[in-house]
């Protein structure tokens, strides 16, 4: 059954790649159908829990094709299918042919290629084929990202993405080759017994982590997600980085891991969660804010995964399973609400043409749908009940608290993680209160903001669908239980067997009740207010005569207080011109938050390498006699080497 759905999915997506450049409608149809088929295939895996496997005699690159789809990969495939479909529809409104005659066709082709390659990454079960699919995925991501390569910023971001992604791929080269050298073949599969493979986990963590973009490997992420077209940012943030998570989950499940793995992963997760959201809070570019928020959420996922590893380390503790379920559920939730938020950001960008929050404001009047949906996404991403963000965070919390209650060594990892999780939650609330408020509320700060327009149906439809998903996942999370259970079983067979969905079930009812009460109370108050008549008046500014849009809090001033506490890592660059004289003519306060890791660590290191390169290149100065001298030098060097060798 699974195979019967997977095959058409692949075929349809291939056809979408073929027709994409020419026939947009046909492409949309194929892509949606393919995504639907993939989603169906993923769903068929969950109830059985067994997973699906298919081995053929057909050789590709000297290896037999071996496909497999189990609980773990199905979770990610379902996400990829949903976002892939939604983004395809959204792109039709956001990046239309008449707007971008040159790049829209290319965008369609690469989009389908990206979705297809992600499906392949999730299904192939052979090292060589995995690398093929992985690289295809990375490169199609690059071409999607640089759809508009005439902008220097886009080119720079694209190159950074490509370079870091290849650095990760090189780690994966080493990982898979070592694996092949250890096991004698490229075929992948559970090898939980073979302890000699444990050290390989570090390579996998580095290689996949580069894609997952946890701190400090996130260097490529902000600029890439900010400069890409918004539907691309959405799938990159919602799904692509999850592929890195998939790699870590997959191979930490299949291979034994070193004892320190759980500690390192949970530590990296905590670091990414806290610093990611701190950076997000300090951003002025709302797409960068969303990008950094992705770093935070990857951190949350890693906290869950690390707890799961610790739980497996300490004799299959049940809390490990809870944490794993929470992590996987958060993969789903983050995919849903982050895609929604990037779509919202996209329609704002589409309507106003700027990514600077401080140039926006009061957009809710012109674009109420976007404002409402963005607000809903913000509630979800801040992890507030009754939406889905809270559900997964609660599962992770439960796992961590049980780890603490277990009073084993792992408690010392769990307790800081809990505190970090809570703090990052509060920071996320601040960050998204800021984003929503500065973009959509108050008065318009510039003309383009005042002249904004609501997005069209092609863009609104997917946003509504994703908002619906967020709502459903929040109100009835128990629907996902079979998926999580089968994934946990696929990750660690000892965790198969029935485990009560009790937390999710109760939480679902509570959320439902909460939502109902909220709706009731809200409408009641609204009616009450209408009853005793409602009057409009200018904002009361404590007696100040002429309140103007300039007096509103900007994104910088909003973040100032909390970001100040993280100045040690944010290192904001301020340019300040103070107010002078009795009738000050002009005052200025610019604040830019640099990419700390990139600008303080990576660029200097790269600078050293480039200096070496320049020094070496000076040797190729074109003077023939020196070239012959090099030949003689080579001769002498090899002679010395051989002489040393031949010494007894």
């Amino acid at each position: 059954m699974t195979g019967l759905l997977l095959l058409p999915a692949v075929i349809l997506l291939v056809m979408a790649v073929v027709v994409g450049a020419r026939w947009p409608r046909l492409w949309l149809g194929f892509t949606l159908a393919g995504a639907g088929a993939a989603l169906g295939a993923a769903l068929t895996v969950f109830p059985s829990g067994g997973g699906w496997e298919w081995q053929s005699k057909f050789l590709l690159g000297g290896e037999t094709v071996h496909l497999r789809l189990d609980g773990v990969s199905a979770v990610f495939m379902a996400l990829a299918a949903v976002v892939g479909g939604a983004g395809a529809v959204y792109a039709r409104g956001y990046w239309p042919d008449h707007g971008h005659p040159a790049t829209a066709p290319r965008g369609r082709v690469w989009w389908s290629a990206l979705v297809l390659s992600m499906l392949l990454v999730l299904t192939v079960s052979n090292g060589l084929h995995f690398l093929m699919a992985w690289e295809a995925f990375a490169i199609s991501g690059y071409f999607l990202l640089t759809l508009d390569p005439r902008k220097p910023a886009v080119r720079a971001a694209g190159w950074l993405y490509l370079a870091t992604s290849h650095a990760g791929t090189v780690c994966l080269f080493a990982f898979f080759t070592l694996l092949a050298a250890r096991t004698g073949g490229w075929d992948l599969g559970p090898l939980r017994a073979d302890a000699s493979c444990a050290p390989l986990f570090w390579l996998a963590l580095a290689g996949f982590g580069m894609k997952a973009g946890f701190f400090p490997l996130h260097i490529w992420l902000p600029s890439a997600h900010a400069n890409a077209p918004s539907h691309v940012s959405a799938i990159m943030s919602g799904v692509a980085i999850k592929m890195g998570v998939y790699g870590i989950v997959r191979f930490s499940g299949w291979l034994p891991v070193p004892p320190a793995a759980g500690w390192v992963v949970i530590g990296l997760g905590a670091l990414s969660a806290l610093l990611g959201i701190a950076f997000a809070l300090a951003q002025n570019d709302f797409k960068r804010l969303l990008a950094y928020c992705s770093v935070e959420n990857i951190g949350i996922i890693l906290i869950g995964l690390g707890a799961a590893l610790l739980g497996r380390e300490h004799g299959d503790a049940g809390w490990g399973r809870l944490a794993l379920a929470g992590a996987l559920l958060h993969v789903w939730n983050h995919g849903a609400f982050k895609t929604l938020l990037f779509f919202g950001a996209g329609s704002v960008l589409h309507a106003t043409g700027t990514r600077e929050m401080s140039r926006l404001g009061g957009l809710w009047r012109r674009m109420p749908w976007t404002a409402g949906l963005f607000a809903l996404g913000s509630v979800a991403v801040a992890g507030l009940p009754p939406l889905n963000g809270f559900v997964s965070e609660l599962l992770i919390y439960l796992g961590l608290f049980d780890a603490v209650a277990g009073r084993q060594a792992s408690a010392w990892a769990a307790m800081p993680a809990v505190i970090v999780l809570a703090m990052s939650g509060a920071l996320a609330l601040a960050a998204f209160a800021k984003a929503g408020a500065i973009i959509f509320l108050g008065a318009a700060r510039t003309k383009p903001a005042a002249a904004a327009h609501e997005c069209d149906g092609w863009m609104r439809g997917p946003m509504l669908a994703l908002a619906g998903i967020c709502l459903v996942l929040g109100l009835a999370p128990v629907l996902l239980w079979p998926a999580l259970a089968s994934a946990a079983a696929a990750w660690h067979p000892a965790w198969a067997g029935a485990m009560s969905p009790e937390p999710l079930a109760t939480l679902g009812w509570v959320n439902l009740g909460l939502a109902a009460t909220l709706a009731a109370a809200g409408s009641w108050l609204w009616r009450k207010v209408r009853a005793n008549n409602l009057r409009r008046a200018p904002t009361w500014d404590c007696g100040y005569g002429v309140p103007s849009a300039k007096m509103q809090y900007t994104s910088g001033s909003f973040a100032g207080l909390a970001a100040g506490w993280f100045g040690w890592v944010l290192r904001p660059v301020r340019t300040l011109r103070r107010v002078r004289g009795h009738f000050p003519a002009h005052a200025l306060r610019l604040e830019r938050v640099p990419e700390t890791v990139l600008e303080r660590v990576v660029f200097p290191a790269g600078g050293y390498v480039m200096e070496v390169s320049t020094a070496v290149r000076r040797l190729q100065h074109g003077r023939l006699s020196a070239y012959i001298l090099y030949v003689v030098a080579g001769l002498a060097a090899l002679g010395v080497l051989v002489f040393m060798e031949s010494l007894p």
Partner: protein
Amino acid sequence: MINSNLNLLIGLAMGLNLLALGTSRLPALIRAMSAQGVILGVMPILMGHELDWQVVLVALATVAGKGLLIPSLLRRAMRTAQIDRELDPQIGFVASMLLGAGGTIAALALTHQLPLLPEHSGSLLVPGALATVLTGFILLIGRTKAISQVCGYLILENGIYLFGLLLIKAMPLLVEAGVLLDLTVGVFIIGIIVDRIQRAFDSLDTRKLTTLHE
């Protein structure tokens, strides 16, 4: 007896090396080179063993090639370029001579470490070859005029030929085919190139040939 004659000639060739290193005048350089060629040419005949046609062929070809043909080519190139001095070389003349002398001593020292066949034990063939090769390299590296570099290359070839004399009895093909092909074609083409460079850059100073670089 024979070995001593041979060694005398080899010593002469080594002396010519130092002369080539020391002179700043191109005609002198070319003369030294061609003289060395002639000496090398007659060597196989003096090597004692009965004269079969191959050895004679090698000898004649060498004398003709290294002694007459190439020098005349180079003189022609020199005339067309109207240069007859090597000015400000990369490695000064005295320094080159010292280097060459040092190299010669080093070659002699090195030869004692190497296992030689009894019939070659006493001869200067190996050290002479090494010293000549070294001289060739010094000229190639140290001089800037294309013509002097060609001479350097040819002296390098002489060194290799000198070494080849060790094998001329056992494996003549290697020696003669190698040397002949190398010399004739190589120098012929280098001649052409020198000519063309002369026309393209109206100079034979290879320091002008640095438009291609990083």
